[in-house]
């Protein structure tokens, strides 16, 4: 988990545009996915995290979580073509931008970041106008229990 958090924290960092992957709980989504519906890829994914740490240790002298943000960015850039990077990025996007029901997208930070106005039960024509300024509707499809 420590390596995962250190990794996705650099994929989508917290900054002046708002919370990043970790603050939004993407790691919770990933953890639950690998424990359940994505269980078949869990071993491969964990091996991938281990090899990131091994690489960080060999090239930069410490496990990923022990490196500075700049060094971690360097590691990510060095492995950007790898299947693990791609898979970790996809799972992080799923965690950050999915319905908060799944554990990520806390306070709808993911949807706010890309300006997705949220699922509505019915959508009027004016909400589909070009350049419409659609008021964000910060609500999980599964009710008010989720997202905050």
């Amino acid at each position, binding site marked *: 988990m420590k390596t995962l958090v250190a990794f996705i924290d*650099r*994929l*989508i*960092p917290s*900054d002046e*545009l*708002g919370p*990043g992957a970790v603050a939004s709980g993407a790691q919770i989504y990933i953890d639950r996915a690998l424990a359940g*519906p994505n269980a078949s890829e869990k071993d491969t994914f964990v091996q991938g995290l281990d090899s990131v740490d091994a690489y960080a240790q060999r090239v930069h002298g410490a496990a990923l979580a022990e490196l500075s943000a700049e060094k971690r*960015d360097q590691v*990510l850039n060095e492995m*950007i073509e790898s299947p693990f990077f791609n898979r970790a*990025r*996809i799972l992080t*996007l*799923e965690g*950050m*931008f*999915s*319905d908060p*029901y*799944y554990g990520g997208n806390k306070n709808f930070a*993911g*949807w706010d*970041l*890309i*300006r*997705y*106005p949220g*699922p*509505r*039960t*019915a*959508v009027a*024509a004016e*909400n*589909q*106008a*070009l*350049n*419409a300024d*659609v008021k964000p509707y910060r609500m999980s*499809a*599964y009710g008010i229990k989720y997202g905050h």
Partner: protein
Amino acid sequence: MAISLKPVDVVVIGLGAAGGVAVLPLARAGLKVAGIEAGTWMDPHRDFHADEVYNNVRRLVSSSPKAQRECPTVRATPSQQARSAGVHPMMNAIGGTSIHYWAQSWRLKPWDFRTRSESTRRYGVNSIPAGSTLEDWPVTYDDLEPYYDIIEQEVGVSGKAGNIQGRIDPAGNVFEGPRQREYPMPPLRGAGFTDHMMDAARELGWKPFRPPAAINSQPYRGRNPCVFHGYCSAGGCHVGAKNSTAITTIPEAVRTKNLTIFDKAQVTRIITDSNGRVTGVNYIRDRKEYFQPAKIVLLAGYTYENSRLLLLSKSKAYPSGLSNNHGQVGRHYFGHWVSNVSALFPYDINVWYGLPAQGVTVDEWADDSFDHAGLGFIGGASLHVYTERHPIDAAAMNTYGRAPLFGSAWKRFVHENAGRVASTYLQTNTFPYETTFLDLDSEVRDPLGDPVCRITFGGVRENEQRALQHAQNKMEQWFRAAGAIEVTKPPANGPRISTHAYGGTRMGDNPETNVVDRWGFSHEAPNLGVLGASVMGSSGARNPTLTLQALAWRTADHLVKNWKSLAG
């Protein structure tokens, strides 16, 4: 030993898009029908959600565990070992794929039914793609028109006619074949972006229109209109506006009291007697095996399952599979060549909401709408621009080399651009080839121990490649005219696997090259009919469902009118 049940008039195997419509004319005619379906009823409250992970990432509506264990394998050539073809949106449920489909409800063009003879006449015999087994269909557009009309009314289709009995209306598709009347509902409303694209197409001199959809644009027969909430793709409709057979023709057939549904029941074999007639089906329900006798069997599974069940149903009369004494089962299979050309705009296009069927279509570059002389291919592709964009997919957008794939610079990029990407759906006229076919896999088996279906691709297809590239270039031209700043065209290669799978039990007059006759009944087993896209010998440049439903109704109608001779 299978438990033998009380005989019925007709067994329909599979209550999906095809079987789900065929049961209605049969039940209305007073025939006793057993609908045997491996899935069960889906519950809109429990099963349908405005949730991208549920619908699109985990595909919990469009795939079901049983069907996924029966997915076909694929290999490039017969000398290779086949590998898994991955998750495929074939599923088991009452309503089948019509639960989660995009509900684009097209009629094929008159040209699609006569592509071989029309292309030969206009461009010469060499225009027919080399290695293709393309034949003219044994039915014409005019033969099918009354059945298209029935399905549009019974299922419920929104749209605007472009040709009513020869009167052309440019608000509809001017390239369509003549229709007897207008659609039962007006087309779905446009969105700001699709209206903008419509204007851009008109400026190019093209004739864009709002395409037909089996989605209610207004209340229809007691069902709700669409609410445009943006979770239609790969999901079921929670308000009942998407007209799957589960909420239209199947309940209507149940009301006649002549249809009995056996759900969670998996048909394992179609049984034949020594004379080669079908006597019924074996199925498994709750681990018990039953034999359901019937005078007529209509096979209405997904394309792969239709071929597979025939090939598995070997008997003395059919040693290499039912209705396969001419070796045609599995032949003339092909997957539709579809393509997404995407574009980035320099302003918010706001396509989050809506649905894939809410869009604008251009038909100038499909079928034989344009002169192909000197182009080196026949056919083309329809161009369809649509709405509905989900947040995970939007965040995973191409960065077009304008930003890195992670970090704060990436955040700034998606903040600005995630709402500025348009997707399209290009559907290519696709044809069958000698070396592309289905058979039974030699290694991979389902949990019952039966081999799964195996796809053999067989080689490159230059005709479809050129046709798709031509259409992709037209799509880019259209996007550029509308103000796009980036356009991405995926490789136009194939053969490919598609949600639109055709052939394997092709319909045709010649029993040497086709499994079923012009009415959908086997050339070999006279009381066996086949329903679905597996009977279609070419795809057209549009979604198959309305056509396979019109054909299914026509087969059922033929059965009712010729009951004595067919039921024996």
